[in-house]
């Protein structure tokens, strides 16, 4: 083989190796970029939970759309009686959402007997219930919705300015199965808390909540 051919063969080998190096390097960099972009701060387990939450959220949004479409159809009918009925139903629904009327339905009743639990503990418990689908909540005959102040005072925990002395009886109306899961989890966590003397819950087919929140007029907020 002539020296020129050998040099050519060497050159080709170098090119092939360089090409391979470039290929591997490119794949490496692209893989890293993809992984970084895809998983920045989120592990697969969290992603799976997020997917579950989003599925549930989108189901709720679908139900809301169906309800709104029905309400719109009622209003489009143009009949005064139908329109008034739609408005009356909506008014009643809004009052129930805002805690202004007594309500009933399936759910759970949880009793927490403890010393030293704070307003933050009660807020967490109430938030857990709401996140678990509670549609109406009462603590020791005080109605609670998001926005009703739960505060810590020298005399203990207050709900809307009134002290709620332990044991706390939390009644929550909603999907009883989901609420039971939440209550079960909370019970396990609370039992590990030294401040808690006793904690229990029961599922009830019909809980009646008679406490109500008084409507407060806006002083500062104006409709846009």
């Amino acid at each position: 083989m002539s020296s020129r051919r050998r040099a050519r063969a060497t050159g080709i080998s170098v090119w092939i190796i360089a090409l391979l190096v470039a290929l591997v390097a490119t794949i490496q960099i692209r893989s890293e970029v993809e992984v970084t972009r895809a998983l920045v701060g989120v592990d697969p387990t969290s992603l799976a939970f997020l997917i579950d939450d989003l599925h549930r959220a989108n189901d709720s949004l679908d139900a809301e759309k169906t309800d709104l479409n029905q309400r719109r159809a009622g209003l489009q009918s143009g009949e005064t009686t139908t329109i008034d009925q739609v408005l009356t139903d909506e008014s009643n629904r809004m009052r129930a959402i805002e805690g202004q009327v007594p309500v009933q339905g399936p759910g759970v009743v949880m009793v927490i007997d403890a010393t030293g639990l704070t307003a933050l503990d009660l807020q967490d418990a109430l938030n857990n219930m709401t996140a678990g689908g509670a549609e109406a909540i009462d603590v020791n005959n005080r109605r609670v919705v998001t926005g009703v102040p739960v505060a810590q005072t020298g005399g203990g925990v207050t709900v809307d300015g009134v002290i709620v002395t332990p044991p706390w009886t939390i009644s929550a109306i909603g999907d009883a199965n989901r609420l039971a899961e939440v209550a079960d989890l909370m019970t396990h966590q609370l039992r590990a808390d030294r401040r808690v003397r006793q904690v229990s819950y029961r599922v009830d087919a019909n809980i009646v909540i008679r406490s109500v929140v008084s409507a407060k007029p806006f002083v500062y907020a104006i409709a846009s």
Partner: protein
Amino acid sequence: MQPVRHGKLAGLGLLALVALATGFVLAGQLRAQLLTPSNQLARYQALVRSVQDLEATNAEDRRQIAALRTQIAALEANAAARSAETQALQGQVADLRAHAGLVAMHGPGVEVQLRNGVAGPNAASATSYLVNFQDVQDLVNFLFGNGAEAIAVSGRRITPLSSFSGSAGQVVIDQGPPLSSPVTVDAIGDRNRMSDALADPFALPDLREREVQFQLQVTFRGVPDTAVPAYDSSLQIPHVQPA
């Protein structure tokens, strides 16, 4: 002969360099496990794609809900013009909806911003530098307790049924997509009362502690006119009946 030998040596040197570089890249590749576990990457990507698709559906659903509510309000206003009874009912419903967070509002208030801090060296506090859902929950409760009449968190309006959840660094409010730092909380209400309460060094102790430990940032300012949007998600109460 001399130039040929030099050329050969240079060629061999170049080859050695390339081989060395290839070796480094391959070693790096094997260590990073990025080429071989392509299934793992594909699984991650599939999960991320699912989240992205669901978030897109979520955004579209919320857009449709907002549009439907606008149409309904217009139909109600139209019907109210025809009868005094309907007008009275429509007025009641409009007021109730405003209190439920279904109407965009504006007025004086405060704007609070929460930003992630800096990770600490201790593994036990691995996520303490991140803004979490409990921080937002505490802040919202605190503001309601100090004169807020309407609140939105990064554009998500808080309603009487709002709840907070999420994992480290992610805040999920109701049926919305996850929020992350910086989280902005806009509250309409008694601006002075809310500002004074936020300035109290003993208020929101957990956040204050992490401000010192992890440089988590809590900033606020009073504003003469702030706005909060209308709630754009579900307010269904299928299990509740009048008592």
